[in-house]
């Protein structure tokens, strides 16, 4: 009997991308997106199913992960967890794109690029070597740049694409230079070998390694939209077509964290690194605070919903960074807090995608982008507005929605790790976030507006409904998620 290769979920995403390109090669002039959407959704579903199957049944997958291609790639609980997340977000965004880009040209490119990026994300989660990491990172970035600039004749879209690209190019140059320095200090690009070199002592190459670690951190901070590598995010999310913003702010961010978790935990073990003076947990504490504060405070004074969500997305990156910041050399809480961060990303994948999809819906209806343009939408489109309200409250962490639980676990983990002050800052930020999220809710329900809305686009509504189900079903289903995440994270520390 042939067993499925461990990388099946990643392969499925890649093959789907090729299938989309093949379809587009055969019928290059089609503007009907239904087949393309169908291929994307089916392929992503297959990938999700494969990842879920490996994750739950454990079929074809050893408990502590499988290394492939001379250790360049590893498939374990964490990579499957994230792959499931990426596939889920891809499904949502594909569905939404059907309506959003209906009748537009070049839809084949759109779906192809999106699936290629998803493949890259999945590969990032599996990367066990800095070489794989770099290639995967670029495989995510390059399609993303093009996706952001997708609306060729829209000034906002091309401006966003330019800024994203320039900052991205700079960041990847910094990342790869950091990788070269790590290679210089340790003589290998494979994370286990790098770790071994750290453990046996770096000698006089601590400085090189230190600069390298910081630059690698910069590369992942770019993907995760963390300060000071966040500058692209507000513009890119605002200017990009809303489904693309959803994709980037949920999946791409999670991919950055997936990479960060593995590279830093496996590759640069904190014990020897910290004793050599490369205390990257401290680095992430600094970044977490700066990111949270900047994201939330800047979000509080925005005029446009989409840009507010963009900044709030930066703020959430700050919360997730706690998952790295609260690690310590030989604490037993490491797996818990990082697992909580992973679970938060998972929940975030649904609620944030959902929120951006509502923005997509609003753009599709042709209502404006500002808060007051959303006035009275609740009365006219109650289902969509209820869904949006749930997403926003979940983002703010209002119980009993999914976002509350993930934040609770994350903060509890950080408290157990002794990072009181960080949690206090996070909670203050959280309370501020409620303020600006509730502005949207207020506009939706408590203000009167006058709109002439054209119908309810089926696929967008379906995507919204799936995201809503994800956000709400994660309440009773949060147990398995957090357990899986914490197990997967604990395995990394073993």
């Amino acid at each position, binding site marked *: 009997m042939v067993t499925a290769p461990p990388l099946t979920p990643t392969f499925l995403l890649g093959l789907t991308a090729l299938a989309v390109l093949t379809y587009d090669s055969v019928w290059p002039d089609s503007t009907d997106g239904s087949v393309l959407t169908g291929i994307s959704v089916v392929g992503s579903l297959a990938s999700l199913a494969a990842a879920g199957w490996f994750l739950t049944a454990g079929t074809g997958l050893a408990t502590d992960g499988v290394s492939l291609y001379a250790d360049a790639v590893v498939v374990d609980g964490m990579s499957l967890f994230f792959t499931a997340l990426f596939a889920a977000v891809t499904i949502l965004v594909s569905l939404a794109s059907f309506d959003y880009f209906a009748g537009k040209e070049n839809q084949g490119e759109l779906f192809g690029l999106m699936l290629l990026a998803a493949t890259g994300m999945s590969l990032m989660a599996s990367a066990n070597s800095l070489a794989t990491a770099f290639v995967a990172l670029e495989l995510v970035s390059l399609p993303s740049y093009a996706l952001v600039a997708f609306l060729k004749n829209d000034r906002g879209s091309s401006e966003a694409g330019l800024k994203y690209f320039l900052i991205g190019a700079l960041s990847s140059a910094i990342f790869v*230079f950091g990788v070269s320095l790590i290679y210089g200090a340790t003589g290998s690009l494979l994370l286990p070998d790098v770790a071994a070199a750290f453990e046996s002592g770096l000698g006089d190459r601590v400085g090189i390694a230190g600069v390298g670690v910081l630059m690698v951190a910069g590369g992942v901070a770019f993907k995760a939209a963390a300060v000071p590598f966040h500058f692209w995010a507000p513009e890119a999310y605002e200017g990009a077509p809303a489904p693309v913003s959803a994709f980037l702010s949920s999946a791409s961010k999670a991919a950055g964290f997936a990479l960060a978790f593995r590279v830093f935990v496996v590759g640069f073990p904190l014990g020897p690194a910290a004793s050599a003076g490369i205390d990257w947990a401290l680095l992430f504490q600094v970044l977490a605070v700066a990111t949270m504060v900047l994201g939330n405070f800047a979000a509080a004074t925005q005029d446009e919903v989409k840009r507010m969500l963009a900044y709030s997305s930066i703020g959430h990156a700050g919360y997730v960074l706690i998952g790295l910041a609260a690690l310590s050399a030989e604490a037993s809480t490491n797996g818990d807090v990082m697992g909580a961060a992973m679970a938060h990303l998972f929940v975030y994948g649904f609620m944030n995608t959902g929120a951006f999809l509502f923005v997509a819906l609003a753009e599709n209806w042709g209502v404006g982008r500002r808060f007051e343009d959303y006035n009275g939408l609740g009365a006219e489109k109650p289902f969509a507005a209820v869904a949006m309200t749930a997403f926003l409250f979940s983002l703010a962490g209002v119980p009993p929605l999914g976002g509350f639980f993930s934040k609770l676990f994350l903060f509890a983990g950080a408290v157990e790790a002794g990072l009181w002050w960080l949690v206090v800052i996070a909670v203050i930020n959280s309370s501020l976030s409620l303020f600006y999220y509730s502005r949207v809710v207020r506009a939706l329900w408590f203000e009167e507006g006058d709109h002439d809305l054209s119908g309810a686009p089926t696929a967008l509504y379906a995507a919204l409904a799936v995201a809503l189900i994800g956000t709400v079903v994660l309440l009773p289903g949060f147990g398995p998620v957090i357990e899986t995440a914490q197990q997967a994270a604990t395995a990394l520390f073993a």
Partner: protein
Amino acid sequence: MVPVEYYLVLSAAVFSIGLFGLLTRENALLFLMSVELMLNAANINFIAFSLQWGNLTGQVMSLFVMGLAAAEVAVGIGIILVLYRNFKDVDVTVPQSMRW
């Protein structure tokens, strides 16, 4: 044999030149070239350390970097073309409609 520090100094210099160009130029194409310089600084490191450690990892990595640099340029120039089409200029400081 040349001490590895020399290569490091060279690569750091190339990296810094690239960074300087990136920070001072406003032409998108020059921006792109500067990034290429930075990537090649990394390549110098990879090759030099590959020689020093006596394994081929660094050389192979440098090939990847070159390949991806080319891809990046391709996408980059595409975006610059779109920029030119919308703003009639390749000056990166012109698009400033989104801020704050």
